[in-house]
């Protein structure tokens, strides 16, 4: 998968590209408007992560050019401005998703993967993972053909961990991901603990191996 990251803060850009490279993405990063425009004209990407405030011009203008050029690259906007207007404008211009800074890398990763899944899923909405099978449409999880009854939060939690499989996901990242409201107001990380506990218990009951690990005090990791 080819990824372009447009972000003016070099240090943050570095974190993002490094994170995605660890997942075998082909990841390129640029820090300004002109470079971004050149890359976007010359090549096509599976997904572009686009900052709005860029030296040399707005990320929204890049998005406009891209769509006027009839290019179908997936676009996720990352913006420091948490305003509804920006979000609406971004989505109007043809962005696929919108993420407010500061975000957690696993969250960005989950958004990118969800986008790619939508883009390339030839109609199937099934995620297979060893003995675990997750149906995204009907929201049913089965383990060795035995259904695991999960609450909405537990389902979202499992999916988030599966999307970020083999990576450490912090409690804060999970809490913000699960909270269905303004990200600013997500509950504290302690909230995640009980849901993880319930999820692990339910999976164990259905004979699913214990694939969710606790990584010291840092967070959780789903290992396959």
């Amino acid at each position, binding site marked *: 998968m080819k990824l372009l990251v447009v972000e003016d*803060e070099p*240090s*943050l850009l570095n*974190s*993002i590209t*490094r*994170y995605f490279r*660890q997942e075998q993405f082909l990841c390129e990063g640029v820090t300004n408007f002109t470079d971004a425009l050149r890359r976007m004209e010359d090549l096509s990407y599976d997904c572009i992560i686009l900052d709005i405030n860029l030296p040399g011009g707005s990320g929204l203008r890049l998005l406009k050019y891209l769509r006027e050029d009839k290019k179908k690259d997936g676009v996720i906007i990352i913006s*420091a401005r948490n*305003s*509804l*207007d920006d979000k609406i404008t971004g989505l109007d211009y043809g962005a696929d998703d919108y993420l407010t*800074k*500061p*975000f*957690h*890398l*696993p969250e960005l990763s989950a958004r990118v993967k969800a986008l790619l899944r939508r883009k390339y899923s030839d109609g199937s909405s099934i995620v297979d993972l060893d003995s675990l099978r997750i149906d995204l449409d009907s929201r049913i999880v089965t383990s060795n053909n035995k259904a695991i009854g999960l*609450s909405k*939060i537990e389902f979202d939690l499992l999916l988030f961990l599966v999307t970020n499989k083999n*990576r*450490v996901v*912090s409690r*804060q*990242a999970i809490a913000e991901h699960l*909270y*269905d*409201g*303004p990200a*600013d*107001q997500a*509950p*504290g*990380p*302690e*909230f995640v603990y*009980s*849901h993880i*506990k319930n999820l692990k218990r339910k999976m164990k009951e259905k004979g699913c191996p214990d694939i969710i690990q606790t*990584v*010291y*005090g*840092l*967070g959780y990791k789903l290992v396959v």
Partner: protein
Amino acid sequence: MSRPLQQRNTRSLLTWLPLVMLAGSVFLYLILMGHIRHMKHQQLQRKQDNVWNAFVLDTLHFPMKMPGEYLVTRGSPKENLTADSANQAWLTQLHRLDGNPYSVTTYIAAKEFRHLLIKVGIAEGIIFIVLLVAIVMVNRRTSSRLWAPFYVTMNNIRGYDIRQNKPLSLDTTTGTEEFDRLNHTLSSLIGNADQAYRNQKQFTENASHELQTPLAIIRSKVELLTEAPGLTEDSAQLLQEINDANERLSQMNKNLLLLARIENSQYPETGRVEVSGLLERLITFLEDYYTNEGIKTKATIEAGVDVTANPALIEILVNNLLRNAYIHNVPRGWVDVRLSGKGLVIKNSGPALEGDPKRLFDRFRKGRVDNRTTGLGLALVQQIAQLYSFDVRYAYEAGVHQLTLLFR
């Protein structure tokens, strides 16, 4: 004690004007008396001359006495001349005719003069009162017209609130130089204060905004480091502490930014927000987790309660109130939520506040040391409530905290 300007003005007029007028009257009386004495004397003298001349012309036939007019006697006057002094004025002069002394006394009526004095006195009294009333009235009218711009300015200033971001325009062409100057000075004074306030608010927003990037960088680096191979438990522990501190900082910064944005009126979009549904969703979410902590939730929610406001802000408002009830609770405690068209009442069990309840809504005012809170949650509640003129109140009694939010 301070009294209204008009009243003070009238009062001082009423004190000093009569005194001045009284002094004037005394002066007038003295002058009048002097004139009267002079006139009496002149009349008596003229009569004296006429009587003596007539007597000299015809000494034999001239009547020696005419009551009320004159009396001629040989030698010194013999009669008691003070007999009718109340009504008469007289003048006695000694004359000589052929070596014989005669004394002539002439009389005139004094009554007229006294009547004149009384009439003048009455006239003066009437003029005095009319003048007093007229002066006071004219004065009141003039001063109320003169001071009108002052009262306009005063009302404008009273209605001014720096937090409302509304400019204050004061008339600088009132027609009175002093008031023009006053309004001008006030305008620039308020303008400066307004500017300083605006800068202050802008500063908070900018500062929070600028802090976002380094915070995001730290967060991403911690996340990368978390996955670095060869992470020991010891360094994981350190990393976790860095992460927790950073997350708290992020949260605080987000809340500060939010506060600044609300203050800067950056949430203009409003719509109908269904509080009932929102509350149910939030309770389900929080209840789920806190049931494990042993906190029981009871909710009585009237269906279809809505308010006109910014949806995001209302969610923050309700969420903060609700989360507070769970966080500042006791093990195996309870939370009781009631929503009606009038407002929202959240009660919960919990230990008493350590600080002053009046300062509960201040920024960074925390009930107890708790790293789960930023100390800004209730400040946000207060700010949002203020924005939509909701009334938010806190009460504590016998182990029960009660927060009441009344919609307009």
